[in-house]
């Protein structure tokens, strides 16, 4: 029951999410401000960001270089050069600039603050005439900030400079690509390396969530609806009380405590959210500089990949796979961070909508679940940043990334794999976090602590069973070619094994044991599963029809009813397991992929068995995993 109610919440959130996204597309125009460029011919925002992410020693080297350029510009002026006494002018000027341009950003932004420069000249060792000339104001229009080609050249020659400029020059993986696949390998490599660089640099800026004016406005609307729901919930509360479904104690608790609490939360929810969010933001901010540093180091590592070329076993196929994984990992990571603010926003207003449910003892838990989910997602960001920093610093310190690198094909290939795997692991780490750091009640999400692999196993099993059922169905149809309405009778059908000893039978589906065990064989695993779950979810899962429909379309000409039934039977097998979180497209995709892997009856039979284990027992014994 808990699973189903959590599932409904997820559906609601999903509906709102899609709604929000479609509205987002409409309003994206004005909201999406172009990347502001600090000044023309200077570094753009992305480049500034990359500069900020560089390690300190590289930043200092770039700063020194820029200050020297400033000194060169200043001393290029004949009058100043003469006043400074000639030859050592540039170094003295650079030294003077260094006293107040202490970061590369300041050096880049220098726009002619002659007062600081002139004041610093004496301590830098400038002759008196130079200082006098400088303070005399003669120099006022003669300082150009470092910009344009000079700036690019100055930065490009420094370590890390190429990375800052985004001019990571990707060498073609295969020098003279002969066929399409080799060209594909080349473009995969290029896309993988450049996408990873871009994504990493922009990672931290997509994930900001603020409880701001806009959120308050939206909260106001949603909590208004929430209060309407509250009044409706009162009717239900009173009816349930008169039906004696609720005892007087609960009733009193609801009316005296939870109703005022709901109103208070409607009023002060944004305030609480603001306080909590700001506490978490400051926590995050204390971590992000360190993480940004690690990201910078890691990006430098990634830039190394740009120079990899085909070598031995590290051929085009390996390149497509490994760099493709790198590409996917980078975007998945970005997606993860990008989704967090949306999730927080929507869950936040979702809480406002659900406030009314607090007064009813039956539905109260839902509000708490969504609240704890919000807190969990908000908490996950600092945790993720920590893990990310740790992982990236570990990778950057690998021997393959130190010094001049290596020409060993396997070492290089494995370094790409490590980097890609690290990002994939990070992208899916919330699932791991929820599993190993159970900060949520187990049923609040489909990723709860006690259900590690239901969805996966059930999907595999379901797809297998579905394929198996369809194969049987088709054969039987061909064999009988008759109007047998009941469908196939398959002695080897997956359903036959349903009652076999040793299979754990969950408490809520004892009924499935006897008909299956009786050996009718007609009931496929999926059918049974669906029946079992039917007790909880009276509506047949609507999205299983998608598969049925698809199969029906595929098999134009065959008796459609049977085929559809078969497909539905199979599909329903994983209905319950996947009901936790993944529905719809994920299921179809997973089912389709698995179908290729499991084409074969034996495989499907085993998979069906596993699926039933997952489906029927719901919770495999995971005490050894979670330690509880």
């Amino acid at each position, binding site marked *: 029951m808990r699973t189903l109610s959590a599932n409904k919440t997820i559906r609601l959130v999903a509906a709102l999410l899609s709604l929000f996204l479609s509205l987002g597309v409409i309003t994206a125009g004005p909201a999406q401000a172009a990347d502001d460029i600090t000044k*023309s011919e200077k570094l753009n925002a992305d480049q500034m960001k990359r500069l900020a992410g560089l390690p300190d020693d590289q930043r200092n080297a770039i700063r020194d270089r820029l200050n020297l350029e400033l000194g060169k510009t200043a001393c290029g002026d*004949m009058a100043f050069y003469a006043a400074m006494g*000639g030859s050592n002018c540039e170094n003295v000027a650079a030294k003077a600039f260094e006293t107040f341009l202490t970061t590369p950003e300041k050096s880049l932004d220098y726009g002619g603050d002659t*007062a600081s420069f002139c004041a610093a000249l004496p301590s830098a060792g400038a002759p008196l005439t130079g200082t006098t000339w400088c303070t005399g104001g003669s120099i006022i229009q003669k300082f150009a900030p470092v910009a344009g080609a000079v700036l690019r050249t100055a930065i490009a020659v420094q370590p890390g400079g190429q990375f800052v400029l985004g001019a990571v020059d990707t060498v073609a993986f295969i020098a003279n690509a002969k066929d399409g696949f080799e060209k594909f390998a080349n473009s995969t490599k290029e896309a993988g390396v450049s996408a990873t660089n871009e994504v990493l640099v922009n990672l931290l800026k997509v994930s900001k969530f603020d409880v701001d004016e806009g959120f308050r406005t939206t909260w106001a609307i949603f909590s208004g609806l929430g209060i309407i729901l509250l009044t409706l919930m009162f009717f239900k509360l009173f009816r349930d009380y008169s039906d004696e479904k609720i005892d007087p104690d609960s009733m009193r608790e609801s009316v005296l405590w939870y109703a005022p609490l709901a109103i208070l939360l409607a009023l002060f929810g944004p305030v609480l959210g603001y306080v909590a969010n700001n506490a978490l933001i400051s926590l995050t901010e204390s971590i992000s500089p360190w993480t940004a540093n690690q990201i910078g180091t890691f990006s430098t590592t990634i830039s190394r990949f740009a120079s990899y070329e085909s070598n031995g076993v590290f051929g085009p196929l390996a390149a497509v796979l490994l760099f493709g994984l790198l590409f996917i990992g980078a975007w998945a990571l970005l997606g993860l961070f990008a989704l967090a603010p949306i999730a927080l926003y929507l869950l936040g207003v979702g809480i406002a*909508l659900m406030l009314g449910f607090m007064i009813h003892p039956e539905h109260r838990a839902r509000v708490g679940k969504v609240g704890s989910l919000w807190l969990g997602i908000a908490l996950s960001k600092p945790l993720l940043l920590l893990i990310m920093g740790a992982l990236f610093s570990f990778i950057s310190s690998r021997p393959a990334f130190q010094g001049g690198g290596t020409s060993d094909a396997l070492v290089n290939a494995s370094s790409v794999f490590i980097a890609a795997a690290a990002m994939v692991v990070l992208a899916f780490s919330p699932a791991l976090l929820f599993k190993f750091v159970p900060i949520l009640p187990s049923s609040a999400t489909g990723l709860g602590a006690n259900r590690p692999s239901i969805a996966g196993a059930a999907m595999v099993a379901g797809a297998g069973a579905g394929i198996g059922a369809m194969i049987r169905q088709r054969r039987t149809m061909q064999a009988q070619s008759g109007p047998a309405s009941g469908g196939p009778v398959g002695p080897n059908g997956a359903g036959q094994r349903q009652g076999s000893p040793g299979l754990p039978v969950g408490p809520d589906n004892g009924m499935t044991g006897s008909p299956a065990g009786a050996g009718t064989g007609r009931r496929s695993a999926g059918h049974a599963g669906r029946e079992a779950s039917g007790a909880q979810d009276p509506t047949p899962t609507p999205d299983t029809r998608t598969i049925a429909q698809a199969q029906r379309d595929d098999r134009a000409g065959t008796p459609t009813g049977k085929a559809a039934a078969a497909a539905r039977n199979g599909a329903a097998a994983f209905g319950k397991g996947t009901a936790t979180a993944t529905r719809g497209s994920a299921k179809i995709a997973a089912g389709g992929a698995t179908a290729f892997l499991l084409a074969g009856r034996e495989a499907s039979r085993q998979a069906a068995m596993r699926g039933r284990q997952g489906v029927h027992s719901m919770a495999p014994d995971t005490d050894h995993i979670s330690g509880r």
Partner: protein
Amino acid sequence: MQKHWKALTAVGVVIVAVAVAVILISRPTPSAEQEPSSLQASGKFGFPVSTIKIGEGGTKTAGDGKTITGYSGTCDSAAQAAANFAPLLSEVNLKTWADQKKTLTEVSVPGPWFEKVTSGGDLMTTTKNLPSGAFDGGWVSRSDVAAGGLYRVASCEEKKRAVVQVFIGSLNAQVKTVPAGGFGTVPMELTWDGDWKITDARQSADDPNFGGRVQDRGPAGATPGEPTGDFPVLTQDLVNSVFADVRRDGWIEYANAKR
């Protein structure tokens, strides 16, 4: 009750969708308008254009034969005087420096400021082993008032006293390359003594407010990129960059500014 819950949710979602859509769509887009100027902004770069011209306003010329003197004493004539005197304060030509100093004395009242303003030129003309780079017959720094073409009257009382800033373009000798263009602001205090006379000029680096008489040091900056050897031409980008950290209000364009 499950069905009721769903129905309520559906109704809620529809209402919310409409509400959110209305809010999002009707939210006004932030407009990045600049604060309106009290004067009509009609110049190419958004500055008001006055009727007065550079190189006019007087009835006589000083001893060098080109610096205009003999002003009427109005505030407009002070702005014209400022434009006409600016080269005397900012140019340095190794060959004509002595004459320039003499002319400057003619149009000014002596004071401690004089030595400061002329120290640069003095240094250039007295330094031995001067690096090469002077152009077109001894120019170290040559100005083109019309290239900047802007002025700001910080304060003015007719036939008494005026503080004016003039934004000029200049060409400065370089040690290793052709001369480089730049822009700068020359402030000066003019006092009426039968004619407008300079009584103070050119702030020092540690006194950007010209002793509190102007609100900021005014726009300044070199043209980006490699030196070209030509007088700089003002562009919108350059205006944005030289005005990046100073205020734009009060600046007025001369009628014959180069645009």
